[in-house]
């Protein structure tokens, strides 16, 4: 990562369902709706595929923000996937702050393939929010880590 962008950008991961939200992001692209560059998109078939642990893993690995977006309720390509997602992700959103991860760093929403502008707004606002919160900061190194790092260097 080039130093310039390294300093400017924060690490934001987005899990997008293939049928609605990924399409919505494409629509935004086709419409040339400008967006901040921090977010990286991981394509999944359905928001129901997003295991809360994937989000946890991203945070554990030092992500500053995580976004999950699926089809609007009632409009899931797999008819029910996003209903399960809604429950799991809501549970996750409430659990994160308990162990010290700001729930504002995690956002889940519904964006359809035709909602390019909505996607643009979501990315822009979420990125803005993450920049307001600043870097998440890694967990403090414990001796085990230190040892490994010393060996490495």
């Amino acid at each position: 990562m080039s130093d310039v962008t390294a300093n400017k950008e924060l690490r934001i991961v987005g899990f997008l369902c293939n049928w609605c939200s990924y399409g919505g992001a494409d629509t935004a692209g086709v419409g040339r709706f400008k967006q901040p560059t921090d977010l990286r998109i991981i394509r999944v078939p359905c928001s129901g595929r997003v295991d809360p642990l994937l989000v946890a893993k991203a945070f554990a690995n030092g992500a500053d923000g995580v976004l999950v977006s699926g089809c609007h309720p009632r409009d899931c390509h797999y008819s029910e996937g996003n209903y399960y997602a809604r429950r799991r992700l809501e549970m996750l959103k409430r659990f994160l702050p308990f162990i010290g991860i700001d729930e504002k760093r995690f956002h889940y929403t519904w964006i359809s393939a035709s909602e390019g502008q909505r996607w643009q707004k979501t990315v822009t606002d979420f990125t803005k929010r993450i920049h307001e919160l600043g870097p998440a900061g890694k967990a403090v190194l414990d001796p085990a880590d230190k040892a490994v790092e010393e060996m490495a260097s």
Partner: protein
Amino acid sequence: MRVGVFICHCGNNIAGTVDVARVAEETRKIPGVVYSTDYMYTCSEPGQDEIKEAIRREGLNRVVVAACSPRMHELTFRRTVEKAGLNRYFFEMANIREHVSWVGENKEANTNKAIEAVRMAVMKVMQDKALYSSSFKVNKRVLVIGGGVAGMQAALDCADGGLETVIVEKSPSVGGMMARLDKTFPTIDCSICILGPKMVDVAQHELITLHAYSEIEDIKGYVGNFQVKVRKKATYVDWSKCTGCGECMEKCPGKNAYDHFNFGVAPTRAINIPFPQAIPKKAKIDPKFCRQFLKGKCGVCAKVCPTKAINYEMQDEIVTEEVGAIVVASGYGLIDQDLLPEYGGGRYPDVITGIQYERILNASGPTSGHIERPSDHTEPKTIVFVSCAGSRDKSVGIPYCSNFCCMYIAKQAILTKDHVPDSQSYVFYMDIRSPGKGYDEFTRRAQEEYGARYVRGRVSRIFPKGKKMIVRGADTLLGTQVEIEADLVVLATAVTASPGAAQLAEKLHISYDTNGFYVESHPKLRPVETNTAGVYLAGAAQGPKDIPASVSQGSAAAAKALSLLSKDMLESDPAIARVNTNACVGCMKCVKTCPFQAIKEEVLRSGKTVAQVIETVCAGCGVCTATCPCGAIQLQHFTDNQLLAEVNALCQM
């Protein structure tokens, strides 16, 4: 692991805001990447040859293409690598156009983003497993939902192509909206005269089964093998006996039933045959108006029926149809006048809708084609047409254009002059939208030959004054307010999605837009497909359309169904869930959450109970994978390890 990476310029689309050369160069540093290059148009034939060539030359066993959205070209490149002897799933795409070059302004940031997108794809592709699709038998029957002109066209084309076809029509007769029209633009030929033969063909075609007065109850299954439950609504007339003689309708004392076919222009009988050319020409009872049902005594129709077809005890019946493809042609609806209070909101009998006027113009309509005012049955001399009655009007919640009103208003103005030579028509319009062969000439004829006065402006209020209706509006060309004393006002009420469109979409697992119209899988290149394999769209269900457009889309949908079912076997998508029986602990949580009941319990010879995926039923959503605590059930091509590889590629600790 020998990964090859191909960065596409896409002309200037990508290269304009991404330093592709640098992306290629940075990519080369990723462990596992043995070859990385950039190319002008990777999707072009030479571009694809370049990939095949590199696979041979460099001995690549994994390929990444960084270009447009996989929704655009994933399939193209999968075929390419397959041609070069790789498994098609040893390929990944990095979307550096829609998600990078087109949406980011800073070239350096874009380039950096592209590099990471590629790294992600490389990490994923190195985790990819070879997948092989198995094939399954297809059911060579087609279901067409809706018996309007689009649906009938689709059904006839499919049947002529040799496929058994089932039509489910919710009203008692096929024909849809077109059967109600008097004449059609721009040729002024009689609507039912050209539609009638089609309707007869539908009835007589040995490969077409028609379920009239029926609705879709439930749809299960997947492309090639749908199970459809159809609810045949009770008509209280045994259609196997009914000859359509109309004796019952003659004698029925229930004289003021609402006439759905004529949009309530005049009442009909409680037992009725919708119109003379109806297919099937059978009677049905409307219990809401039938004395037998309301008062519990009458039975006149039962007495007079020569074939004893009347059965007041009749119940809805559910029949199941097995089909391989579905064409959705469920048509459109029209807004109610109550949404237009400034035009009377339906309070004034002499303010009617365009479709009602069609029925009045129609020789087989309630007025036998004589133009009369509903209020006093006198012949109107001054007729005002209001276009965009609800259309293109956010305050009514309808931002879109209803597509064909401009044309039918011109037609109705012409017909009015034909019927009542000493009449004068006025047309209030926002814009005249007549883009079609012979369309603009037609609207001009209405003005120049038939003397219809076109007033550019919107109508602000319609109110009665004595026997007249006063239409007040703006004439934006003269920049003044105009008031016209009309005998009859015709509103071109806005076209909407047909009532129940959303519920049907949910049964079909297809998506619909904010206005309730069904969404095609690509607005330009896949206009009749939906995102659900084997389900196609035809007619106004997908958006307001005139007859020629509906017919062409009907044929197009039929062509899609025919080509799909021309194969005896279909290839199943191998990107479905698989169970690692060693890891599975048989807790069966996946069974609880599978939206498709695609997972069943199975006891291995060892006596161990595990989950088992029914390959043909699994749709590949991955809800099970996210449910399984021990990662035993993995959605192929989106496994935990594959997604973790992407996460780790993005956030190294």
